[in-house]
């Protein structure tokens, strides 16, 4: 891979982030809602303020957030701030900054999503590959079927079902939260185990929902690949079944899966919002949910842009990984 392509990919990454942040900047401004006015409106309803004072306070807040300036000037300032990952103060959690709110929520989401995405990708890809391989034992091939059936169940329903049966009825695992109430987070085994117990159900809800998709796409690809001439020739060469499976069949069927992984990263965030809500986890999904309810624009901006950056970065990384998997891409 040459230097030019690397630069091209990186420029494309910047372009994606810029486009996303521009859209994010203008869309809320198209609406006539004014977050500051609404907040003070609520205050005014509780009484004790004269309408003139409220207007003055709104004006001073507008000034403080730079909302009194012309749109274009706001936009330039906004771009500058984004490049420093500075999204301003959170309106609902003032005086915390939006970046601080995100930084607190982020580890929970990354921990859960990274693990579940990797687990379901690996599990689904292997099960799908085996399901399409005619020489695999029957019991192993049939393992894929329940996961395919579960694909139809949305994570919301799956989360609620898991909570009801395993958490509420059987009481095997806690009902929600990131860790048990009243425990102070420390770097200890007992805290780690408590943490993990709380993560199992949300992780299962996410994994059950997504393994089937990987199984289906991999099985379809596997059926195509095993009819390829090079798989047949590998058998003519007298290779062992295991080697044909790994080097000729899996290796080639994997290529579209990796593309699929890049595309799936976007939708994974969506299900995280729902699953975190159901299980009461303090991740990005919950933070976004709260921010939307509180009209906390800086945090909404921050999270949306952060997600954009994260997905664009992961896609860029995959673009760099893909040529390592497929030499034909390297040539072009």
């Amino acid at each position: 891979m040459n230097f030019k392509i690397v630069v091209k990919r990186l420029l494309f990454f910047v372009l994606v982030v810029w486009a996303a942040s521009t859209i994010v900047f203008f869309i809320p401004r198209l609406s006539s809602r004014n977050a500051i006015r609404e907040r003070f409106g609520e205050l005014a309803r509780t009484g004790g303020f004269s309408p003139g004072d409220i207007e003055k306070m709104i004006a001073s807040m507008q000034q403080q957030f730079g909302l009194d300036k012309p749109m274009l000037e706001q936009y330039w300032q906004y771009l500058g701030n984004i490049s420093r990952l500075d999204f301003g103060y959170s309106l609902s959690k003032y005086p915390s900054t939006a970046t601080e709110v995100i930084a607190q929520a982020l580890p929970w989401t990354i921990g859960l999503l990274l693990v579940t995405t990797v687990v379901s990708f690996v599990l689904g890809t292997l099960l799908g590959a085996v399901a399409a391989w005619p020489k695999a034992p029957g019991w192993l091939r049939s393992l894929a079927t329940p996961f395919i059936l579960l694909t139809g169940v949305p994570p919301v329903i799956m989360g609620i079902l898991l909570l009801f049966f395993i958490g509420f009825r059987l009481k095997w695992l806690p009902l929600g939260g990131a860790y048990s109430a009243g425990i102070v987070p420390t770097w200890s085994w007992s805290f780690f185990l408590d943490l993990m117990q709380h993560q199992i159900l949300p992780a299962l809800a996410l994994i059950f929902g997504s393994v089937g998709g990987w199984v289906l796409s991999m099985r379809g690809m596997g059926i195509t690949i095993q009819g390829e001439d090079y798989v047949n020739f590998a058998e003519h060469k007298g290779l062992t079944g295991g080697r044909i499976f790994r080097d000729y069949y899996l290796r080639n069927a994997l290529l579209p899966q990796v593309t699929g992984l890049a595309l799936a990263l976007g939708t994974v965030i969506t299900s995280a919002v729902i699953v975190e809500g159901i299980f009461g986890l303090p991740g990005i999904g919950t933070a976004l949910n709260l921010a939307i309810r509180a009209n906390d624009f800086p945090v909404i901006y921050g999270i949306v842009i952060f997600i954009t950056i994260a997905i664009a970065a992961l896609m860029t990384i995959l673009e760099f990984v893909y040529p390592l998997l497929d030499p034909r891409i390297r040539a072009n």
Partner: protein
Amino acid sequence: MMMDTKAAGAQAGSRNATAAYDAASAKSVLQVKGLEVTYYTDLGRAKALDDVSFTLGAGEKLGMVGESGSGKSTMALAMMRMIKPPGRIEGGSVIVDGTDLMALDDDTMRRARLDKIAYIPQGAMNSLNPVTRIGAQMVDAIKSHMPREGRSAIMDRCMHALRSVDLDSGVFRMYAHELSGGMKQRVCIAIGILLEPKVIIADEPTSALDVVTQRQVMETIDRVQDQINAAVILIGHDMGLMAQFVDKVAVMYAGRLVEVASVREMFTDPKHPYSQALISSLPNLDNKGVFQGIPGLAPSLLRLPSGCAFHPRCPHAEELQRTVRPESVTLAGGRTVTCHLYAEEGQRHV
């Protein structure tokens, strides 16, 4: 047909014929006897190979010709024991260098592939793994047969094979998409001869190549065969190419070998009416532009005609041809033909 010949010979009390047969089988490196393959499709049973028998000596080249669907590739796959369901090998034996491949267990058969009997694929364009280097695909072939072979010995083998097919050693580090069609085909040949097999089956090795490259590939096959003294079965449609490169020609029709003869006999004096029609359909210098096609279509294997499968298209078809299945007979010079017209002539020569 050798079995038939032997039985007939014993009946006639001709000791000479039996002795001649034994001598032939002693030097022959490949004996195929009564090979039968049936595909069990939803529409019924299709007998793709019906009692196919022939022998081939070391260093001999057999050209296998016939229309599409006549069973040429099925025969190659059956010899490799690579018939996939719904197809099934129903009987017969394939004896390579004294070992009956049909009697081997699955793992021994796996090790016999490439080591005793190699297959050079039809679609060389797509027969190489696109995501690994050519070298890796040669090394894994050797390693799966010789797990204890040292690194340098493996490399020697690979380099020797690449040199044999006139490829640069740099190809070892290349990927399939970096090679031309002819180079890919030669890589497949190089892989085929890595373990110096006794028998090489080349299934239409030149089908997707231009005529110049076709010739180069055929010359390559010719040369490597000389080096390792293997028996070669060349499957193809191109009678012209066959005429230049093979020693014997076998004509297949509807899953049966209808005629096996030396290339000279086949082109100057074809016996079977189908072979005669094939030969007369070839362009030649004497009657330019006047080609004679073969009337009718190849029969469906699901509904084969009664008697001789060729009778609907045969100019000599009579009651006998329509009702009785012809047996293979041996004519003067050891050539065989499966046709009622030669039944009596065959008796005289057995």
